[in-house]
């Protein structure tokens, strides 16, 4: 594992100076990406260097996800709306400011993702494609694309891309929303969607999304051309 190293004496001196000047806001000047990477080695252990998780692993890739979305998730883990033992313990004693810095750092990173090979039944793919692109009026389900963007790359700064995570992760999140194990700020639109979807459709949506190629231009789109079909507490 290669890391940028700060000269020890210098790091200590910077901190001492920061402590001495703690009354001034200068103490909070933003560290470089290399300095942030060094601070966040603990995150790299699962999410990969610069948040680029390998698609061989379950942990989601977080590089390049919208900053507002990442920040919300950090708050959700810290404050008990999302459950993951290690994430909760890592974040328990972090200030809002540090969480914002961490989210901004990962949002700035370039993602790199090779979708894992997968094979899905044709009927699941067909149903999944319909749900993702058109939704299902009979079940009062808006399409995934109506919030996550036409190419599912997400919308800055609060709505995440649906690409670049393993299908197991995606279906686990929808299942967790359905069971109440994962929550977002109220009104929790995704909890509502997951309820309406049901297990069968969760599988179908996951299959279709997993079959899509990862785009060369991965950046979330800057805005949506219409209002959200549901009210979402996480989108401010």
């Amino acid at each position, binding site marked *: *594992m290669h*890391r940028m*190293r*700060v000269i*020890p004496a210098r*790091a*200590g001196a910077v*901190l*001492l100076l*920061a*402590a001495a000047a*703690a009354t001034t806001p200068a*103490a*909070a000047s933003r*560290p470089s990406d290399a300095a*942030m990477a*060094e*601070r*966040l*080695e*603990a*995150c*790299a*252990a*699962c999410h990969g260097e610069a948040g680029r998780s390998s698609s061989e692993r379950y942990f989601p890739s977080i590089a390049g996800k919208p900053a507002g979305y990442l920040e919300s998730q950090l708050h959700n883990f*810290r*404050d*008990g*709306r999302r459950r993951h*033992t*290690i994430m*909760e*313990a*890592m*974040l*328990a*004693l*972090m*200030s809002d*400011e*540090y969480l914002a*810095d961490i989210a901004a750092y990962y949002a700035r990173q370039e993602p790199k993702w090779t979708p894992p090979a997968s094979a899905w039944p044709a009927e699941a793919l067909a149903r999944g494609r319909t749900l993702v692109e058109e939704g299902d009026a009979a079940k009062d389900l808006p399409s995934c694309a109506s919030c996550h963007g036409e190419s599912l790359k997400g919308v800055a700064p609060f709505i995440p891309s649906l690409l670049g995570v393993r299908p197991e992760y995606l279906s686990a999140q929808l299942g967790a929303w359905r069971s109440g194990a994962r929550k977002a700020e109220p009104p929790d639109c995704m909890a509502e969607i997951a309820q309406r979807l049901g297990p069968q459709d969760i599988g179908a949506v996951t299959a279709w999304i997993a079959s899509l190629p990862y785009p060369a231009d991965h950046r979330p789109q800057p805005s949506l051309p219409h209002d959200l079909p549901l009210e979402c507490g996480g989108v401010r």
Partner: protein
Amino acid sequence: MSLRGIAAAAGAVVCLGAVLWLARPEIQEWLDDSLASPGAAREAAAAGSATAAGSATDSPDATGAGGATGAGSATDRAETAGDAIAAGEYLARAGNCIGCHTRRGGAEYAGGRAISTPFGNVYSTNLTPEPETGLGAWSADDFWRAMRYGKSKDGRRLYPAFPYTSYTLISRDDSDAIFAFLKSLDPVRSARVEPDLRFPYGTKLALLVWRALYFEPRRFEPQPDRSAAWNRGAYLTEGLGHCGACHSPRGPLGGREADASYAGGNLPTVGSMEGPMEGWTAPPLRPGEPLSARDTDDLAALLKSGVSARRAVTGPMAEVVFHSLQHLRDDDIRAIVGYIASLPPLPREAAGAGTRVPARAGENLRVAGASVYAEHCADCHGRRGEGEAYVYPALAGNGQVTSASPANALRSILFGGFPPTTEANPRPHGMPPYSHQLSDYDIAAVLTFIRGAWGNDAAAVSPVDVSRR
């Protein structure tokens, strides 16, 4: 009646007699409470006029220790209501009230956090001034009675998870200031959660007996032959800080062993969540040998910022730094450190209770551990375990590494973690979790290696103890 029956009845009478005899001061007090309602009118104190309490004469406790505790009292005398609230907020920080009385993600001081004990769970109460579920209907006298005597407004005895065995030392002035601060909070509705204790620990009799054994209302007695700073440190450490709640060993009934103060304690159930936060040990505070100026500087930095030249706080202590100690003035931090440095030294720890590792197996672990260390640890902690000041803790000479119980170091390796964010260290460096990267054998090996390298001299750790965590 058979002879056996008579013997059994006599045995029961003797047992009951013994229990009642043990609990007699508590029972006397309970009778007194039932016959006369306590507390003369001292409502004025609640409005922030801390001096009113000083002039009350109905109780010898009213004069308290405030006058001897240095920095706090001089400002209290010249206060406005705002100053009293600010003083109270500071004292509430020193007592880390927020740590227990805030549910994760919940409103500050609104309670509801589960405090797990070996006897079951109790739930912290709502300290906001909400009239029905909080302290809205309480007076300063009621609050004082809770702090000093461990009793609720209705006379109910409180479970000692609320550390009134320490808070009993708090001065009336300080109690009033904390109360004035709590009254200034926004009222939040948050209903009391009934404790969930195993029989017989939840019974009134159990509480009476426990209190008879382990609790006595006390006053802080300043030592005239010690400096004001030492006395301030003693007051904060023994009283508000309730450091002994974790750092002193507890007997089988959860009472503190008075003759072993600050000899360290196990926290089998303490923590903010299940899993990684459980099973820490609180290290002894009494130094094995006198602390040098470098040692006390290091400790002061650690308590204030969460990191120091040689160390970083982890586990439940990181919570204490985050919620409480980082907010204290430097003179109070120094006072606490000075008091701790003055505690009588402790004999060297006895060997731990873990699985004994045969010498040959220990040697194999050490050899394997050296390569695990080089690959995964040396980058941050240094090739000689020297760490990096204020960034990565040193492992050479680190008491958390060499303690008889390897529990804390093991938890750090398994689950990683960050020191708390503090004003002096707003963006701490984190330790990666290794529970899913290294085998139990490799974790035992690397821990065995660091416990025996660079002058460290602690016993090997068995892979069995790693997998048993």
